[in-house]
């Protein structure tokens, strides 16, 4: 008895499936499951972000002043445009429009490259000023000072009203002296941080033998404030920033490689038969890369 139910003779049908519909549903379900793993993969970093932000809000308020909001917004726009072109590419592949498919893939690739270019400008700026992850965190004094100026300009009114309410003037240090001073006291990026937004957990540094924490929190805090304008563990923000954007950047690069592969296939006419699963799956992946960036932009650049 021969297999009785072979009804679909499409050349793109793999031997173990019975119909194109079954094959398409399988690959789509598989891709969605893969996207679930991507969400949870990034999820670990989001968890670290939330835990540190909730426990040390001042670190994030301080740190985000060093990210360029307009460059972040530009990159968001770039990625949204690339999502559009990828969605359009899927449509073109479905309708067997080879030329449009090629155009859309090229556009997506160029937009992804633009994203990385902007990212390079941002990383380069941070690299030059020592605004790096924890063990390499060594910010230039003048960068901290400039951030102070920006803060004053953008939040002058609130800052004045807040510090008028009795913000104690810190001891001066070389970095602090570089900051513009007005009659209400010293301006630092930290001035706008409300008391409720300051971490309740002390810095872990030194302490009784065998313990990570100092016996005298207040003294340790005062000692720190005397030499630095940044809050304790400001470096954590930059660790989180580089980890999240770095992992996202790696995904962008992988996406670009996949786009090149699709482009090669498109030029070979692999999608002329309307079997567009590969385009569909890579578009799905790319949309998730876009989705993650939408949240990264909000959570890293638009704090406060």
């Amino acid at each position: 008895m021969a297999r009785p139910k072979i009804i679909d003779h499409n050349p793109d049908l793999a031997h173990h499936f019975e119909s194109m519909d079954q094959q398409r549903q399988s690959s789509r379900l598989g891709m969605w499951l893969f996207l679930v793993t991507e969400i949870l993969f990034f999820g670990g970093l989001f968890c670290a972000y939330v835990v540190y932000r909730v426990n040390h809000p001042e670190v994030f308020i301080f740190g985000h002043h060093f990210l360029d909001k307009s460059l972040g917004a530009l990159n968001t726009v770039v990625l949204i445009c690339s999502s559009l072109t990828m969605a359009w590419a899927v449509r073109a592949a479905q309708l067997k429009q080879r030329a449009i498919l090629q155009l859309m893939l090229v556009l997506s690739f160029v937009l992804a490259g633009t994203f990385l270019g902007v990212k390079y400008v941002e990383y380069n700026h941070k690299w030059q000023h020592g605004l790096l992850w924890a063990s390499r965190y060594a910010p230039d004094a003048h960068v901290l000072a400039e951030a102070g100026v920006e803060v004053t300009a953008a939040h002058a009114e609130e800052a004045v009203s807040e510090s008028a309410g009795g913000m104690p003037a810190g001891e001066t240090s070389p970095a602090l002296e570089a900051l513009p001073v007005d009659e209400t006291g010293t301006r630092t990026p930290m001035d706008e941080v409300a008391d409720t937004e300051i971490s309740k957990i002390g810095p872990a540094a030194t302490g009784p033998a065998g313990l990570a924490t100092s016996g005298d929190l207040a003294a340790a805090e005062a000692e720190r404030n005397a030499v630095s304008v940044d809050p304790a563990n400001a470096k954590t923000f930059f660790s989180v920033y580089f980890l999240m954007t770095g992992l996202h950047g790696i995904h962008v690069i992988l996406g670009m490689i996949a786009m090149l592969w699709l482009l090669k296939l498109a030029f070979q006419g692999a999608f002329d038969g309307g079997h567009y699963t590969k385009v569909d799956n890579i578009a799905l992946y790319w949309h998730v890369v876009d989705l993650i960036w939408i949240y990264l932009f909000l959570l890293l650049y638009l704090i406060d």
Partner: protein
Amino acid sequence: MAEGHSAVVTPMSGGASGENYLTTGKGPLSWLFTLDHKRISVMYMVCILGSFLLGGVFALLIRTELWAPGATIMSADTYNKMFTLHGAVMIFLFIIPGIPAALGNFVLPLMLGAKDVALPRLNLLSFWCWLAGATVCLVSIVVGAVDTGWTFYTPYSTTTSTAVVSMTLGAFILGFSSIFTGLNFIVTIHTMRPEGMTWFKMPLFLWSLYSTAIIQILATPVLGITLLLLIAERTLGVGIFDPALGGDPVLYQHFFWFYSHPAVYVMILPAMGIISELVSVFSGKRIFGYTMIAWCSIAIAVLSFLVWGHHLFTSGQSGLLNMIFSALTFSVAIPSAVKVFSWLATMYKGAINLAAPMLYVLSFLFLFAIGGLTGLFLGSLATDVHLHDTYFVVAHFHYVMFGGTVIAFLGGIHYWWPKMFGRMYSEFWARISAALIFVGFNLTFFTQFVMGSHGMPRRYYNYLEVFEPYHQASTVGSYILGLAFMIMAYYLLHSLVRGEKAPENPWGGATLEWATASPPIATNFEHEMVGLDPYDIDSLTFDRETGNYVRKDPGSIFSKPIGEE
């Protein structure tokens, strides 16, 4: 079926053409690049059993070292490496891929009456990921074996000088292997079920693989990012887990156990699935409580994500969270117990056939019950403070993982061996070996319960004299285990060349894998299959001449050609 009964070597044969999946395609490349789930499963099985051997050698070295207090055969540093490598190899290389990749891969499409898994290329990629990950791990063992314990806790793992980066990189790659297998199983079960096989007509092994796959999909990526962060911590110093750089080492434990607790259910759930199949077949009875067992698999998968904090009871976790996690931990006992009672009820008044696979089922029920109940001691806050980090934990873990998973894995290997290789092994030696494993296991690990409750800490190189008799009994037990496995290796390998030819259905299973040749042809079935009741044991009758169980209505499992109905 005594050993050496069949002296004449008969050629392996499969379907009508005489070909089977083992003979279709020759040479190593036809294996390494195969898309056939059966060949991938055989390759997985060989590699996984190799890892089991490696991990077992580490275990025997540990037990030998612990024969007497102080130095016996190795230095303290070497000992630290040994128990770390024993854990890492057994967990990441052997037991997590074990049942799903080696047995599940073979059986799942067959049980569905399908020609292959839904995504065969991904299946092969999964195996390659396993090979790559295992290679990186082995290189790491050679260049600077880790000594942190298999959990890689910070700050041990950030301060030790051993090869943490390569070991965690290996485990990271192995994670992909696990994800791809799980993903493939979910897709296959969703899209490839045959006509007539609704969700609640699936064999329970498939339910358990499905639940396992849910955990693999949702938990493994978190391990991936955890290990990646650990690598970044060591190479770049990002400080997420390092208190000196503003990080939180307890956060590492949350990250790690968010994966690794569900991962123990990746290990035990498929084992439970095997037991569900075996207990029904070897009791000659329909499985009791099918629907509850199926739902309990899903329930265990979901609950497994809610209990990870019980590993942090003594890590300074908040009191409130301790109580929440303790209560949730107890809740996992409910679906597990429902399953155990269902298996016992299946055996009740059954025609029990004490063949080797059934001996493993009985071992499982006994050992898993002890392992599960001692888990409750560890889940309650007050007793856990006393028992934490003692041999009690080690014994509990081994009763569940060895007494549960490995025993069921062995039962599964013996059950499906005739299907996989078309040969019967020596039943006599199989029973001897099963009995020795049961005795050796209890001798090894029950003594550890006693030691642990008396306060013997785990992972210690040296110990008080008072523990010496227990340690020596435990070591003797481990040697018995080693002997039993050597016997098993001998008769299984022997069966490949000299075993009797296996019939299609030597045990009387009603699931679809028994309705094709042993070993199956490359495309699994000669006909389109329909899904019938997988536990309708009575639909089969024993044919004394061939030693085969045959369907009373042979045509019932074949799909009718269109127009014939």
